[in-house]
């Protein structure tokens, strides 16, 4: 098999190396909460939960932006929609008011997560179908416009808090688990993230994923191969929206609060930044990007209130000097270690 995986310079086949990296990452994530308690910083677990959730959303954006080359500037909309699904269902479960004439309220995570995924997927299907009629800069602008429309809609949605958002007094419940315990919730988020990354890794390596990478490189070539690219791009947008909805639903539980701010364009920009910073078109890049961005933000904010002045140039330098973002940096360091 002439698989292009062995790199003579580094001695080990690429897939063994990336599996090793994956194992190392998982070990770090598993010991992290215990380490955090040990050094007397239990808040680190909550920070890590946040990073993991954002990494799910960023990885979903990476599917269309990094692999298919569709720079969506509206990713936060699906993230926010997922969060609102949790918030609205919770609200109805507390008040007992009917939703669409039915008793649909629930605070069961095993129900709210799939519903959030499906609703976010539906939203991204409708808006994606329209946005994909454009490409390039127009696509960026139209996704931004759609997301801002959805943002404004939720700002105006006074029945569900409007501008102020919705407070979720208790996290969604899971049978036999105490989700109020921050460590338990960390495990839930980590497990969901691992599953989502595993699914994405299969998707990008599949025939469908190969088509997406082809679309990024040359749509004209794909047409000459006989591929109608539109439907592939649309399905990618739907999967991406579903992932964002999943992340939003988890974040709503994590913060126990939902507000239109979650779908503001700045959040979309942050997702794009995580993808670029981490290394777009790489599987783990978005996770590194989320960790890098949120980590830096937290560190610098603790140090000075003008943290953005420092963060900005740092990000520019990171992108300029670590070819392929942080995952490029990780590869560089690991390569150097092995001589």
């Amino acid at each position: 098999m002439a698989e292009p995986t062995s790199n003579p310079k580094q001695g080990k086949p690429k897939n063994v190396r990336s599996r090793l990296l994956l194992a190392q990452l998982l070990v770090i994530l598993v010991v992290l909460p215990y380490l955090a308690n040990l050094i007397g910083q239990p808040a680190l677990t909550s920070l890590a939960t946040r990073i993991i959730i954002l990494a799910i959303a960023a990885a979903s954006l990476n599917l269309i932006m990094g692999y298919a080359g569709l720079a969506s500037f509206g990713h936060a909309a699906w993230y926010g929609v997922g969060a609102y699904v949790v918030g609205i269902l919770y609200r109805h479960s507390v008040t007992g008011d009917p939703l669409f004439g039915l008793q649909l309220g629930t605070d069961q995570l095993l129900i709210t997560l799939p519903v959030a995924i499906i609703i976010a997927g539906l939203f991204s299907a409708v808006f994606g179908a329209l946005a994909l009629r454009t490409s390039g800069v127009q696509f960026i602008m139209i996704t931004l416009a759609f997301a801002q429309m959805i943002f404004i809609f939720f700002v105006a949605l006074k029945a569900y808090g409007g501008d102020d958002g919705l407070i979720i007094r208790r996290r969604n419940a899971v049978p036999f688990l105490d989700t109020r315990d921050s460590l338990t919730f960390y495990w839930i988020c980590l497990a969901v993230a691992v599953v989502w990354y595993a699914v994405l890794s299969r998707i990008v390596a599949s025939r469908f994923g190969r088509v997406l990478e082809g679309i990024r490189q040359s749509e004209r070539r794909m047409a000459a191969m006989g591929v109608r690219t539109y439907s592939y791009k649309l399905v990618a947008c739907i999967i991406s929206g579903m992932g964002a909805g999943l992340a939003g639903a988890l974040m709503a539980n994590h913060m126990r609060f939902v507000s239109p701010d979650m779908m503001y364009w700045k959040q979309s920009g942050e997702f794009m930044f995580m993808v670029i910073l981490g290394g777009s078109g790489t599987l783990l890049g978005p996770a590194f990007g989320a960790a890098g961005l949120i980590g830096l933000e937290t560190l610098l904010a603790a140090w000075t209130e003008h943290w953005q002045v420092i963060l900005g140039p740092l990000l520019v330098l990171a992108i300029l000097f670590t070819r392929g973002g942080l995952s490029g940096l990780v590869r560089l360091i690991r390569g150097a270690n092995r001589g």
Partner: protein
Amino acid sequence: MAEPLLQVDNLVKNFGGVRATDDLTLDVRPGEVHALIGPNGAGKTSFICQLMGEITPDAGAMRFAGASLNGLDTPARVRLGIARTFQITQLLDEDTALSNVALTIQARQGHCFRFWKKAADDASLLGPAQAYLAAAGLAERATVPVRDLSHGEHKQLELAMALASEPRLLLLDEPMAGLGASESRQMVDSLKSLKGKTAILLVEHDMDAVFALADRISVLVYGKVIATGAPADIQANHQVRVAYLGEGDA
């Protein structure tokens, strides 16, 4: 005479005030190499783009194997069995030569909505892909990213990809452009090996290649076919000599 595989009648295309295709009528018979020659700007590439559905003609009819092509998009025409190469190669630069061909085979096999099985070690894709690369003399270069291949290898790879879609008609847009003498010879040999199997519409400036390969030649000047015939007839045609061959080659 056999029923033509491709029949183009009275094709017209205007770009603003410029008539790129002027009442163009041409046919390609099964298995023949039909060369289309003409000076720069004669409208050869825009004719190919119209055949592929990338440009919509203003008037005229195109029929392929008895079915009308009008209104079909590029992927639909590819599925019918038309494949092209580009004057300026259009390849997936970041991927290897092998995965470029494998993706073409994947596209030919039908829809690609398969989300789970790994495509990179799918024997039903890699086996044929390697065979096409070997036939193009690129077996050794299979795992090299396309951007690291030479120009001549790009041209060979594009031809291999066009063949991988198992076309009945190949549209070749200047396959020799920019090739060195030995690369040109190699390309002519590759095309000769296709003779009789696949019908070819060959747009080319290299007259040695054209006369070595073509069964028939059409001469396109200002979007109009001014002559069609066997190579010997075209060489002898006065009008053609003035318009084109007289430029130095004949």
